[in-house]
């Protein structure tokens, strides 16, 4: 009996020691260094962006944030010495919730203007990318030209809270007898996007011309095409909290400067493969 008891004790002690060791090992990670006491003039601004929308915001080979949003904001940060930008990535839907919760100060994820967003957030006034969206269908499809052709069919839109979802929802409200089924998903890969259309899972999707081209290129053939007139012609802006006008004005000023000195166009060409900063 004694022997067995010892055994149990030994095992328990071992488990306990293991737990303790791991606890001490990992508490190091919890301690945040707060070294920002010295420079009080510089305001720390947290930028919220996505991690799955190539080439705008995604993680590169080493797991670091990369893409158009990041490159532009890096230049903006350089022009604004009174701010220090920090970046936080999450899923698309979580970016705006984080802005609501005050976890971030700037939301950067190719946000187009819409009334719903405008009601809750402060839009920047200096757009930094054009955003013209079209219907996208398989290349051999000749029937679908506009949203009206999609009654009772299924369309893929870019996730809850995205502008394409908003547009189709608005369309459905205006045409109650002619409803389009919305299938929401976010951060699809090109493969999933093309495959979804080819397999007939969706009859159409909404995307910009450059995104459609990107998908075709990634897929390796001209499997999909854009049709008809633009669904919406707009541009994208950063979003701020309602009362953060100072930051909004400063960032707008910086964007304006980047436009004037040609830097923004440069970044657009390097990241997006074309100048999409003024018009298409």
């Amino acid at each position, binding site marked *: 009996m004694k022997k*067995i*008891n010892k*055994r*149990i004790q030994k*095992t*328990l002690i071992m*488990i306990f020691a293991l*737990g*303790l060791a*791991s*606890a001490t090992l*990992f508490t190091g*990670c*919890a301690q*945040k260094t*707060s070294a920002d006491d010295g420079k009080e003039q510089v305001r720390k601004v*947290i930028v919220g962006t996505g*991690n*799955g*929308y*190539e080439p705008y915001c*995604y*993680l*590169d*080979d080493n*797991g670091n944030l990369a893409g158009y949003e990041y490159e532009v904001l890096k230049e903006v940060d350089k022009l604004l010495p009174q701010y220090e930008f920090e970046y*936080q*990535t*999450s*899923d698309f839907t*979580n970016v705006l*919730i*984080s802005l*609501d*919760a*005050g*976890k971030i100060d700037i939301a950067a994820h190719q946000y187009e203007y819409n009334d719903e967003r405008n009601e809750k957030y402060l839009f920047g006034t200096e757009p930094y990318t054009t955003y013209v969206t079209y219907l996208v269908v398989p290349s051999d499809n000749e029937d679908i030209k506009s949203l009206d052709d999609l009654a009772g069919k299924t369309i893929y839109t870019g996730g809850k809270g995205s502008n394409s979802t908003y547009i189709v929802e608005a369309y459905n409200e205006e045409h109650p007898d002619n409803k389009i089924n919305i299938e929401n998903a976010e*951060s699809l*890969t*090109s*493969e*999933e996007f093309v*495959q979804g259309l080819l397999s007939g899972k969706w009859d159409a999707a909404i995307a910009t011309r450059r995104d459609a081209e990107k998908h075709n290129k*990634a*897929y*390796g053939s001209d499997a999909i095409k854009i049709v008809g007139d633009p669904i919406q012609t707009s541009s994208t802006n950063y979003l701020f909290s309602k009362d953060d006008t100072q930051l909004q004005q400063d960032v707008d000023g910086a964007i304006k400067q980047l436009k004037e000195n040609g830097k923004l166009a440069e970044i657009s060409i390097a990241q997006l493969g074309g100048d999409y900063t003024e018009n298409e």
Partner: protein
Amino acid sequence: MGDLFSADRLVEEFPKLIPYLIENLKVLLWATVFGVILGLLITGVRMKKIPILYQITVVYISFMRGTPMLVQLLLIYYGLPAFIDPILGTNISREWPPILFAYTTFILNQGAFLSSIFYGAIKGVPSGQFEAGLSVGMTKLQTFRRIIAPMAVRIALPPFGSDFVGVFHNASLVYVIGVVDIMGRAKSIGSATGHVLEAYVIVALLFIIFSMGARALFGFVGNKLDYANIKVR
């Protein structure tokens, strides 16, 4: 369809993903170590039926066991700062990195689940054992420590083991609040390369290997503790 899966990419992405498993393991360790401590405290409250605290634990446990992990994670991530910051005058909403919210959620969750396991295990020891302890002159504490606890540990071990593996699986949810763990990295590789299936296959493989390892370990410890069946030499 032919390009959906390629063995080359599988091999290529493997080393890219492996380092991120550490994030999941960190969550698992925090959840287990502090979850056990919290679980024991809650079990104490439940055993002693300490007024007020007891009622709180009942609500707490039913909440933690009755809501999806994902919901808890988002509630803590967005809701906890809104609740704590005004009271304590802190600013964890911005100062805490997402992973700290992940730790907090998993510790709170595990505290509830493990307390149920512990409570059940202690209750599972026949009351005659307790009486027997007292009858040979041990104090209540001695009886608990020498008689009840060792048996309870043995009863608790199998459910503890499956819970352990379950937490590890759940830890793959932390990417939704912006922690770049193995799942988050798999998704981001997917969006950067346009190919996502290989990364998911790798994640699945790693999870299977880990789960099997953990099960084997708990099986081994369980056998060690199964003293009723140990051969006496």
